C-alpha cells in the first residue's frame, strides 16, 4: 500500500532530478561556451564559416517565409478588419506584427530547423567518430573550436536575418495591399512608417540575438553530448530542433513581457 503511494512520487522525484541535471548541464555548457567566445585564441575562419552558413545560406528560406507571412497577414487583416471598417490599419498591423513577433519567431524557427539540426548532426558525428577526442589530443579545446565560433556567429547572424525578414515581410504586405486590395502605394508605405517605433524593431532584433544563441546552444550541446552511433546522432538532431523551438516560443513570451508589459 505504502509502495503504491510512494512509487509515483519516486518517479516524479527521479524525473525532476533528471530534468534539473539536464538543465544544469546545459547551463554550464552555455557558460563555458560563452567564456570561450570572450577569451583568445579566436578561430576567425570557423566563425566566418558558421556565419556564412547561418546568415547567407539561410537567407532564401527566411526570405520566402517572411514574404509569404507578410502577404498572408495583409490578406487576413483585410478580411478581419473589414468587419469593423478598420482596413486602413492593415499597414501598421503588418509592420508591428512582423517586427515585434513574426519576423524574429518565424526566422528563428526556420533557422532552428536548418542550423540547429546541422550543428547537432555535425558535432554529434564528430563525437561518435572520436573526432572530438582527436581535437583534444591535437592541443585544441573542442569548446573553443566547435562551440564558441558557432555561438558567436548565431548571435550576430540572426538579427541580420531578422532585419531582412522584417523588410521582406513588409514588402509582402505592401504587394498584397497595393496590387490586390487596392491601397495607394504611397499611402500604404506612409501608414507603415507612421506607426512604426524604434522599440518595435529593436525588441525584435534583441529577440533574434537571444534566439540565435539558443539555436546554436541547443545544436552544439545536443551534438556534443550525443552517444551511441548513428541512432544517437539522429536523436541529438531531433532533440536540438525540438528543444530550440520550444525555448524560442517560451523565451519569446518572456522577452515580450520584459519589453512591452506596462
Amino acid at each position, binding site marked *: 500500500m505504502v509502495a503504491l503511494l510512494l512509487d509515483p512520487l519516486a518517479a516524479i522525484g527521479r524525473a525532476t532530478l533528471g530534468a534539473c541535471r539536464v538543465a544544469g548541464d546545459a547551463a554550464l555548457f552555455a557558460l563555458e561556451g560563452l567564456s570561450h567566445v570572450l577569451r583568445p585564441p579566436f578561430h576567425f575562419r570557423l566563425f566566418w564559416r558558421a556565419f556564412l552558413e547561418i546568415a547567407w545560406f539561410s537567407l532564401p528560406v527566411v526570405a520566402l517565409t517572411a514574404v509569404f507571412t507578410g502577404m498572408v497577414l495583409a490578406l487576413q487583416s483585410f478580411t478581419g478588419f473589414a468587419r469593423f471598417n478598420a482596413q486602413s490599419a492593415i499597414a501598421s498591423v503588418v509592420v508591428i506584427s512582423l517586427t515585434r513577433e513574426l519576423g524574429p519567431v518565424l526566422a528563428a524557427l526556420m533557422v532552428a530547423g536548418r542550423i540547429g539540426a546541422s550543428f547537432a548532426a*555535425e558535432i554529434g558525428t564528430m563525437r561518435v567518430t572520436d573526432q572530438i577526442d582527436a581535437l*583534444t589530443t591535437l*592541443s585544441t579545446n573542442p569548446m573553443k573550436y566547435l562551440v564558441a565560433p558557432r555561438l558567436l556567429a548565431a548571435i550576430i547572424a540572426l538579427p541580420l536575418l531578422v532585419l531582412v525578414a522584417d523588410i521582406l515581410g513588409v514588402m509582402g504586405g505592401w504587394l498584397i495591399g497595393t496590387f490586390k486590395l487596392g491601397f495607394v502605394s504611397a499611402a500604404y508605405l506612409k501608414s507603415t512608417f507612421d506607426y512604426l517605433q524604434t522599440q518595435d524593431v529593436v525588441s525584435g532584433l534583441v529577440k533574434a540575438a537571444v534566439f540565435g544563441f539558443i539555436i546554436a546552444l541547443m545544436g552544439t550541446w545536443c551534438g556534443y553530448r550525443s552517444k551511441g552511433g548513428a541512432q544517437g546522432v539522429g536523436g541529438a538532431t531531433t532533440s536540438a530542433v525540438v528543444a530550440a523551438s520550444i525555448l524560442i516560443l517560451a523565451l519569446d513570451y518572456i522577452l515580450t513581457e520584459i519589453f512591452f508589459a506596462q
Partner: protein
Amino acid sequence: MTEAMAATGRDRAVAAATPKIRVRGLHKAFGPKQVLDGVDLEVLQGHSLVILGGSGSGKSVTIKCILGLIQPDAGVIEIDGQDVLKMKRREREAVADRIGMLFQNGALFDSLPVWENVCFKLLAQKRLTRAAARDKAAEVLEQVGLAASVGELWPAELSGGMQKRVALARAIAAQPDIIFFDEPTTGLDPIMGAVIDGLIVDCVKRLGATAISITHDMASARRIGDSAAMIHKGRIVWTGEARSLGHTGNAMVDQFANGEREGPIQMELRR
C-alpha cells in the same frame, strides 16, 4: 666543475632509470561497471609496449586516462616522473602537447583537407603558417608513403589504408615524445596491416618516441612491440616480450594469442 659534471651524470642516470610512462593502481568505473581495477604499467623511454586484451577489458580506457580524455577514479599516472593527475591545467596541456595519438578509425576531420588534418596541431600551436604547413604536410605524407598530392584530397576520398596512413602522419607531424596507437591495423587487409606496422616501427624509431599500442592482431603486436602486457578484467595479468606471444607459458595469454576457445578466459554471454 668536477662536482657539476658528476651531478649532470647522476641526473642523466636518474632520467634513464625513470620510466617515461608509469601507471600505478589505476581505477575507473562507469556506473556499477568497474572497467579498470588497479592497472599497473611501466614503459621505458624509446620502448614500444603493446597492450593486449579482449573487448571491454579496459585497454582503451587506460590509454584515454593517460591522454587525459578520461579522469580516473584513483591511481597515479606519471610521465617523466611527474604525476600528471596532480598537475595544473596548463602543465597538463604542456605534457599533452608532447603526445601523439592514432585513433582506431582514424578520426580524421571530415571538414578539412588532408594537409590541414596532418598539420592540425602545428597550426593550432601556431608553429607554422598555412603556407608552410602545406609543405610540411607533403613532407610528412611522404614519410608514410603517400604522394604530396594526397594532401589536397578530402578524408572521404581516401581508402581505409590511406586514411590510416594520414592518421599516422597526423600523429607524428608534431614530432611527439610519446605516441599511442589504438588498434592501428583493425579493418585493414593483412598486407596493408603489415605496411602500417612497418611505418609505425619506422616512425617511432626515427622520432625516438615511446609508444603504447592497443591491438587484437598478434602478428601486428609482435611486429610493433618490444614488450607486451595483457589486460583482463581491468588488471594487468601478464607482461613480457612481445616476440614471445603465443608461447609465453601463461595460459591466459597463450589462449588469447592463439585464439583458443577453451582456456582460463571464458567469454561472458548475456542470456
